[in-house]
């Protein structure tokens, strides 16, 4: 899937994460800021990258402002942002990929 346009999902509330995706031509650029960066920075990065990989997103600028979200939340927010950037509103393929 490609990042069609800028989109955002999630909030900055505690235990959530705000994920913004934007089109980009320079491959995947991932920027993470987190209140638990020291403890879980690597884990957050891995979760986001895995989710993007599963959605077959190969380029885009992805910004995550994490407020201590669990992995499942993070995954859902990344998926939602990518779906929104493609204007997919019905039959959302949560946890899967769109081919």
């Amino acid at each position: 899937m490609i990042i069609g346009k800028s989109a955002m999902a999630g909030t900055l509330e505690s235990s959530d994460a705000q994920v913004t995706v934007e089109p980009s031509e320079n491959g995947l650029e991932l920027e993470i800021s987190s209140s638990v960066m020291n403890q879980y920075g690597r884990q957050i990065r891995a979760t986001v990258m895995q989710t993007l990989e599963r959605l077959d997103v190969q380029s885009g600028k992805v910004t995550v402002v994490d407020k201590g979200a669990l992995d499942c939340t993070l995954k859902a927010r990344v998926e939602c942002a990518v779906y929104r950037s493609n204007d997919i509103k019905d039959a959302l393929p949560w946890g899967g990929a769109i081919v």
Partner: protein
Amino acid sequence: MSYTVTQIAETDHRGQAAVDALLVQEGIKRDAHLDYTCGVYDDDYELCATGSCFANTLRCMAVSHEHQGEGLMNLVVSHLSEVQVERGNTHLFLYTKTSSAKFFSDLGFYEIARVPDKLVFMENRRTGFSDYLRALRRSDTPRERTAAVVMNANPFTLGHRYLLEQAALRADAVHVFVLSENFGPIPAADRKRLVEKGTEGMDGLILHDSGPYIISQATFPGYFLKDSDDVSTVHARLDLTVFARIAEAMGIGMRFVGEEPFSHVTGLYNQVMLEELPRQGIGCSVIPRRSVDGQPISASLVRQAVHDGQIEQIRNWVPESTWAYLTGPEGAKAVAAIRRADQVIHH
């Protein structure tokens, strides 16, 4: 306690009055220009927090001290970010009191510059400003022979050209930053192209887009919409602090500016510049305007003449390329927009 975040319309006088009261209570000055305002209400429909937008900036954000520590600012910034993304703005800016900057750095904002004890200017991209600096074309000239000129060129006149010629006499390279904000009747791309065409054959000029970091809606909103002098002065200081960082990165040692007898806000900006830049180790020279038949040339006057349908008047004030643009099909839309505008003289 549960909270509700909702828009407060401009016409909602009761809601707006509550916002005013909250801002006063928390010692925050309300901006004269806001294009979206939201409020966070508790179960009793009391306003606990507020925040606003203008263009790609977040402004006037406050949480009532009775509710501090509950994470309400997170709600406000989440809500405003969504509003901004809907508008197509993902690169966001804000300013805040120096004492509040740390809250915003927890919400994914990074400091660009600060005016000590006044305000901090932030953006939501870690490498936004450094990427901008990296992308600017450099010149291999010594610092003391490298100059900068910032211009709106709305449109490019022989006055602008004269300013650039004067700068080029005193420097080996002149970096020309043309304002990128699409605000007036002439599109930014056209303004820049007219600078390009109007300076053909001049040596040592390097043209840049000013981007969001020089005299933009974010750094110096008072340039585009009238603000009080106090507010404009602080914003001008902020804008010039950011400029000093750009100058440092690019090895620019001086800035040239045209004398400003007409526009109040530009005059104010120049005055702050004459104080601020030397303090940052950058020279600043004011070049007297070029006059034609005793009349100093100004883009405001050019627009006024176009507005009044007396385009013949500007023949001697603009280079051939600007004349061709304003009288040809290319600029027809801009001319129509100038003619329709109520006010074409810069405040």
